[in-house]
């Protein structure tokens, strides 16, 4: 059973994020419908050779893939921001006066946000299932509503947890993070170049290293590097 406190935190998250989440909810259902319907319209145009339907669908779908990923990360970021803004607005005074530890409160908040993200994933799944059942998908293509929705949910959860963690900090910690990132990006390559010339070593530039560490498995952004196509071979 869910504790009364968790229930209240969920309710709070719901009240805080329902209006900002409305456009996201519409997009989650609408994006797959939009993607599939425009694709199907494009390949149904008179001058389009129907025998090339499959390759047309694949091309269009790879164009839409980025939109799914973008929506996923925007959803995650928006949920994270809405979960903390209320606390930021009053300097966290109310939550600090509650008789629970700070970690427990943050965990409640995290869980509340994660529920909203799950909701987004479910809406996207619904949209995907509707989209692939309404339209005839040309052979030999397959549809991947479940794996795309899973990917969407994971991507959103990931961005949510990152932004949530950053927003959980004070302004000071955020400044540290941003300044640290800027230093790595600006001075990292210079430093790496100096080290490489002086010691004749061959580290890559930190930027490249970091990018690879982030995107290759099991890096945190790996999920954004895979296939975001609802319809694929």
């Amino acid at each position: 059973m869910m504790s009364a406190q968790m229930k209240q935190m969920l309710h709070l998250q719901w009240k805080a994020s329902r209006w900002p989440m409305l456009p996201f909810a519409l997009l989650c259902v609408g994006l797959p419908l939009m993607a599939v319907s425009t694709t199907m319209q494009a390949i149904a145009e008179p001058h389009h050779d129907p025998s090339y339907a499959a390759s047309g669908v694949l091309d269009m779908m790879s164009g839409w893939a980025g939109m799914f990923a973008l929506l996923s990360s925007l959803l995650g970021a928006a949920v994270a921001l809405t979960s903390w803004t209320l606390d930021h607005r009053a300097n966290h005074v109310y939550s600090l006066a509650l008789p629970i530890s700070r970690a427990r409160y943050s965990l409640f908040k995290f869980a509340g946000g994660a529920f909203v993200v799950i909701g987004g994933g479910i809406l996207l799944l619904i949209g995907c299932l509707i989209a692939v059942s309404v339209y005839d998908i040309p052979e030999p293509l397959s549809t991947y509503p479940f794996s795309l929705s899973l990917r969407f949910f994971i991507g959103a959860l990931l961005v949510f947890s990152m932004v949530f963690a950053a927003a959980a900090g004070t302004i000071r910690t955020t400044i540290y993070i941003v300044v640290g990132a800027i230093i790595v990006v600006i001075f990292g390559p210079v430093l790496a170049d100096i080290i490489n010339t002086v010691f004749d070593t061959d580290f890559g530039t930190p930027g490249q290293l970091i990018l690879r560490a982030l995107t290759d498995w099991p890096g945190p952004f790996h999920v954004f590097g895979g296939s975001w196509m609802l319809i694929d071979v």
Partner: protein
Amino acid sequence: MSNAIEARGLNYRAGKTFEIRDMNLNVPAGSIYGYLGPNGSGKTTTIRLLLGMTKRISGDVTLLDHRSPDDLPAALAKIGYVPERPHLYPTLTVAEAMRFHAAFYPTWDAQWATRLLRVFELPHDRRIARLSKGETGKLMILLALAQRPELLILDEPTDGLDPMVRRDVLAAVIDYVGDTGATVFISSHLVHELERMCDWVGVLDKGRLVTEMPITQFKAGVKRIRLIGAPEQALGTPFELLSRVPEALSDGESWVVRGWDDPMREYFEARGAKIRDIVDLDLEEVFVEMLRNSRQGVTR
């Protein structure tokens, strides 16, 4: 437990201008403790230090026998806190805020909360963002009271509220104290408001706790004495001299003293000074003279 709040050697610094140095604060259990100080003297900061919202440099704080900040959740479960500025989630309605609050406090008294809601005439289905200032203040007090705390910490609870609301709020607090004997720590810069209800006062000025004593002692025999030919040195006085200033219109001097008793007239007569007048002072005037004294460092 003899003290509901105890701070020992509290140190804090903010920037270059404000600091709290070696503060010792004792709020006796069961008392109504008035924490007085002009705006900017550090009342709110002290409260945040006590409640573990602001990090102190050093010092020990004990709340209801729980050490802060290690054992804060246990202490906070028994503390009703009303901050100086609204802190509730503005998107919740009044009823929702009450349900939220209730979930976190095992001692929540739903029946009494409902009664207070009626007494305060709060619209239960209105969003907090749309409440008036007075309504928000009343709701904050309602939440703090309905959790039936052992210790109420009120930070300027009536600041900016109209007299009607002020009266309702304080009456509710006193009603609760009369019922339960809870401790109240109430900060204000409005002295006369606290005058009738407090039994202890702490006076804060520029981060320094100037004095801390029972209010009867604080007010005992406080007089303004207008003198002609006042002695240069005020040594060996049988009373406590809070301040002395030259009179504006005559060549006399005006002394504010504490612990005055009529036989002490002798002190002046023996030194050739003539008493023109002795006037009673209220708490606010004592407070003002106290601050003047502490700032000028007049000899005691």
